[in-house]
């Protein structure tokens, strides 16, 4: 396990090559760079169909400097289960070097995890495979053109949940995927945010070190789908935490802990107004979102037994 205390602990090697086709300012690129720095060269990546998958492997070019497999949209966890089992069996039989340990990492988007991929993910978790599942969440089916997914937040505009007279964006709240995963009682579950890279990297490192499945849910601001100038990707990630629209936590063997405290939090409108996908929301709708967040904060503070997310300053 690599110990990351600060930026200077990050390995310099880039296992993710430039020249990929991710949008300018796509924070998924940042996430993948970090993931591979932590995981290192002895890593096999299974990538579900997603923005990262198509943008980084447009034949005959690949950005991956580690072995990489894509099978389909909903089955990355199943394919990874197969790889994990194969390596164990082949090592036991001496067909591959039993001394070398290999990280197996699934990289999937929200579409391929919350919705179509939930079954194979659940199966992988239930069977206890030693695989780290990294969910990079841009809150819609971005690869196919910004359609709504189970991860899309309340009232967000997407191409299939427009904000109009008869329909006001997504009408359901965001599915609590990390909690669903935690309910499988795996050794390590965490939420992370690309704007808090040291916390995110520490979680990648922990996830790779456990004996069993781990799951890291990373918020990935998307300039194209969330409608903001590409330079603000990290800033918006930060606003998500500052408004408690996103909470960084981890659960290690059932022990729940919030890793990014927010002593004084901002009104959600700071986050919402920075993004075009929430443009046109009424005051009532913004307050509805604020109430939902307030309730979430109360619940989390109760769970921790301490006010880790503080009161609103506006």
């Amino acid at each position, binding site marked *: 396990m690599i110990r990351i205390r600060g930026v200077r602990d*990050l390995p310099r090697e880039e296992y993710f090559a430039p020249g990929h086709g991710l949008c300018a300012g796509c924070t998924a690129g*940042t996430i993948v760079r970090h993931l591979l720095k932590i995981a290192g060269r002895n890593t096999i990546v299974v990538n579900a169909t997603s923005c990262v998958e198509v943008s980084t492997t447009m034949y005959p070019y690949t*950005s991956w400097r580690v072995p990489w497999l894509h099978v389909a949209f909903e089955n990355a966890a199943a394919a990874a289960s197969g790889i994990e089992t194969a390596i164990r069996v082949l090592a036991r039989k001496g067909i591959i070097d039993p001394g070398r340990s290999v990280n197996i990492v699934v990289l999937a988007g929200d579409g391929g995890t919350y919705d179509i991929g939930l079954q194979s993910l659940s199966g992988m978790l239930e069977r206890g495979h030693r695989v780290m599942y990294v969910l990079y969440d841009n809150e819609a089916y971005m690869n196919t053109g910004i359609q709504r997914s189970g991860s899309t937040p309340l009232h967000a505009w997407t191409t299939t949940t427009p904000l109009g007279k008869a329909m006001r964006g997504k009408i359901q709240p965001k599915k609590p995927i990390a909690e669903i995963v935690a309910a499988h009682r795996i050794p390590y579950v965490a939420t992370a945010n690309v704007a808090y890279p040291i916390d995110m990297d520490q979680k990648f490192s922990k996830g790779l070190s456990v004996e069993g499945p781990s799951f890291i849910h990373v918020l990935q601001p998307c300039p194209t789908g969330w409608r903001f100038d590409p330079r603000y990707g990290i800033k918006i990630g930060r606003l998500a935490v500052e408004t408690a629209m996103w909470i960084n936590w981890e659960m290690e063997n059932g022990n729940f802990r919030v890793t990014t405290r927010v002593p004084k939090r901002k009104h959600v409108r700071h986050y919402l107004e920075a993004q075009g996908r929430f443009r046109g929301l009424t005051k009532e709708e913004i307050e509805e979102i604020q109430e939902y967040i307030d309730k979430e904060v109360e619940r989390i503070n109760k769970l921790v037994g301490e006010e880790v997310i503080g009161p609103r300053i506006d």
Partner: protein
Amino acid sequence: MKSWRELPIGGIILEAGNSVKRRTGDWRVFKPIIDHDRCIRCLLCWIYCPDGAIRIVDGVYKTSDGKLWSLSFEIDYDYCKGCGISAEECPVKAIELVEEVR
């Protein structure tokens, strides 16, 4: 382009990281320029770049007012897409986005 006989089977790509042959720098409209004297070597631009287009360059750098650094940052303009994250996140505003004319 290669014939079916010349391609490896199954669409496999054998050359790791060969995307470096795609110079995505030509996407750029705005070009970030680092002011090496202002830069405090916090590493944040290198940390956040989605394309890995910022390189750490080891070597002594002396600023105009005599401060010594052991490393600097270099933007690889072959790949920089000009997203602006580095300019936005730099805590001392040492990166300026300049409109590029080509």
